């Protein structure tokens, strides 16, 4: 920290009322400057068609007062040191964290497995659960690129889009079923991952992030404008629904319900979709966990920590980065084709930069590299979005501010402890003879 003004001042004990009032006044003046025009006056179309201004003094007054009150309280209680936020820092013993993490992860998994049983008739909950699982899978897929390999990819939605469109086009043009198209869409997306990953290998950090963002936008714009192939802004509709090993979820005689002598219920298909995405997400997780133990996974994490050191140790960083890109893209593509089959309709609007930002936010806020953190973050964010559905207008504002807030509060994410790559067992005592030899 370069000379912060706050840390220079001697820490006073007790409450500094005058100081807090002064802070609040300054904050109020700044807030008035910020809000006076943009919040205090609203532009509307007048009766003659020209823009007119509607003053909103109450709103302006309220927002300034809110900022002042907030600043006053923060100054009074936190800056003087009278109240401290509990240190949200988990100390070293990894074992305990692992243990807790295992319990929490297991509990979450069990909960996920029985959701369809508990909420069988609640279509809304099931839909939200499917959405959460889709984001969990996307988060885990991106976690390979961002969390493990340390390459910030702001265009991940491109692979999601490639997967969705490959699936939709394959299914529509060739009439292939979901289970054939799913791996194919994954392969196509992985191919695109390599294709887009190859030129950006030399870039680091911020530049890589911006180029991937550019690629994401290019792919979206091409999809939007290439009408003959992708349907342009109208998208593709009538994408076939998945079947249960050939049994469609219809009320017909050859349908799923009739075959198993069940009463037809539209929830069957939703429950099936939920288990499909759960299985896909768990496969992503399993593959990631296993790969971390393999040389390639070790190489990813080594590259994240220090690329130059990695190269001097003889690790081929080109291949290492490309595999991370390709694998991440593949899972993104598979999630995309699931999205396509669930919605039955896709259009470029589903694949904007906001989507990428959302997935990156899930990975970073969850704690880069932590599988459990990513799952929790997806649950909190997507769930939070649903809770705030009534405040549709405000939820993106809150989302943006929350991203800033969490970065300031915990820059390393919610679960910032990392699993060690190697578990060292109990320290072995060194025989006295060896110690003597070393001394002489």
């Amino acid at each position, binding site marked *: 920290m370069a000379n912060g003004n706050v840390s220079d001042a001697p820490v006073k004990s007790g409450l500094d009322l005058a100081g807090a009032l002064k802070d609040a006044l300054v904050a109020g003046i700044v807030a008035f400057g910020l809000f006076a025009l943009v919040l205090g006056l609203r532009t509307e179309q007048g009766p003659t068609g020209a823009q007119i201004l509607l003053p909103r003094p109450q709103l302006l007054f309220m927002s300034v007062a809110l900022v002042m009150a907030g600043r006053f309280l923060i100054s009074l209680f936190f800056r003087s040191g009278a109240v401290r936020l509990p240190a949200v820092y988990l100390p070293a013993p990894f074992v305990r964290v692992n243990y807790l993490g295992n319990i929490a992860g297991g509990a979450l998994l069990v909960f996920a497995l029985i959701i369809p049983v508990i909420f069988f008739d609640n279509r809304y909950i099931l839909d939200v659960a499917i959405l959460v699982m889709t984001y969990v899978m996307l988060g885990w897929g991106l976690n390979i690129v961002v969390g493990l390999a340390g390459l910030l990819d702001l265009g991940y939605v491109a692979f999601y889009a490639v997967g969705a469109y490959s699936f939709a086009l394959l299914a529509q043009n060739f009439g292939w079923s979901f289970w054939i198209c799913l791996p194919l869409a994954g392969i196509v997306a992985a191919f695109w991952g390599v294709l887009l990953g190859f030129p950006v290998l030399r870039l680091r950090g911020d530049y890589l992030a911006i180029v991937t963002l550019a690629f994401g936008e290019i792919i979206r714009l091409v999809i939007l404008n290439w009408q003959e192939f992708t349907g342009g802004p109208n998208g593709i509709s009538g994408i076939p629904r998945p079947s249960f090993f050939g049994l469609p979820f219809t009320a017909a005689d050859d349908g799923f319900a009739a075959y198993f002598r069940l009463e037809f219920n539209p929830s069957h298909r939703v429950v099936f979709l939920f288990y499909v995405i759960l299985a896909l997400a768990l496969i992503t997780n399993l593959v990631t966990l296993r790969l971390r133990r393999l040389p390639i996974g070790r190489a990813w994490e080594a590259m994240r920590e220090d690329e130059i050191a990695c190269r001097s140790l003889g690790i081929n960083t080109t291949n290492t980065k490309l595999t991370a890109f390709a694998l991440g893209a593949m899972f993104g593509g598979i999630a995309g084709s699931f999205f396509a089959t669930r919605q039955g309709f896709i259009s470029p609007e589903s694949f904007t930069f906001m989507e990428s930002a959302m997935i990156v936010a899930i990975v970073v806020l969850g704690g880069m590299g932590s599988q459990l953190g990513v799952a929790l973050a997806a649950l909190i964010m997507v769930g939070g979005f649903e809770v705030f559905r009534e405040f549709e207008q405000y939820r993106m504002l809150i989302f*943006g501010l929350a991203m*800033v807030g969490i970065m300031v509060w915990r820059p390393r994410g919610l679960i910032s402890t990392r699993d060690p790559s190697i578990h060292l067992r109990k320290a072995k005592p060194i025989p006295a003879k060896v110690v003597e030899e070393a001394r002489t």
Partner: protein
Amino acid sequence: MEYFIQQLINGLALGSIYGLIAIGYTMVYGIIGMINFAHGDVFMVGTYIALIAFLALIAIGITAVPVALLLVLIIAMALTALYGWTVERLAYRPLRGSFRLAPLISAIGMAIALQNYIQIAQGARVKPLPPIITGNYVLIDNGGFVVQVSNIQIIIVLTTVALMLIFSWIVSATALGRNMRATSQDMKMASLVGVNVDRTISLTFVLGAALASVASVMFLLYYGVIDFFIGFIAGIKAFTAAVLGGIGSLPGAMLGGLLIGLIETMWSAYFSVEYKDVAAFSILAIVLIFMPTGILGRPEVEKV
């Protein structure tokens, strides 16, 4: 040929606007090495401030164009600079010294927040402003295509040149400029020799936002319509300009801005309007991949 000259003029005007925004990117990158992702949205907030200031001035009866324009410029610069300062204070300063990607994520959050703040405060509809500066000069008229340059284009280019000169003077000859250069070379060392690093960085954001607000006023006058989403695309293009010119270099930002403006205009004129953003994004990718230091940037030496 006449058509080409006309596109050249249009491209120069557009490029000047991009150049002014690009300076904000290049300065912040030069001084703390981060991409100020929210800068494009600060520019967007600036256009709204300018629009409301114009309407307010008309409402209170100040309709003389030069006076109104000057007042709007002053108001927009002051208030947008305040936004720049606040963004830095809230989203970036607490993260100084944190890990590399934290400020970028926080900047993305800030960009989303600003966009939605404007959407909530002013509505999602496109906001028009009736043309305030009208009139143009005919340069070539030989019966066929008429080449003309409008007054607003002249104002844009002249203002940009004037601001560039003032700004280069600030950076090269004032105490603030010296502090900025010192901070960009070595933050810790600068603070040891008595540079108030925090204040210098704040002022960098303030200056960048003020320049962006001038671009906002010009954009508003030039196009006459704004919406809450213009910040993203304008920001990306200005960032491309900064990178193309060589990030960290002020003349580079201006040069890059002009080039991007020209390329975009020519592309729309001769190829296709639909793919003009694809062209801008492709240039960004190509430049970063093949010449990451840009045209006027210095090569970065990789130290172990």
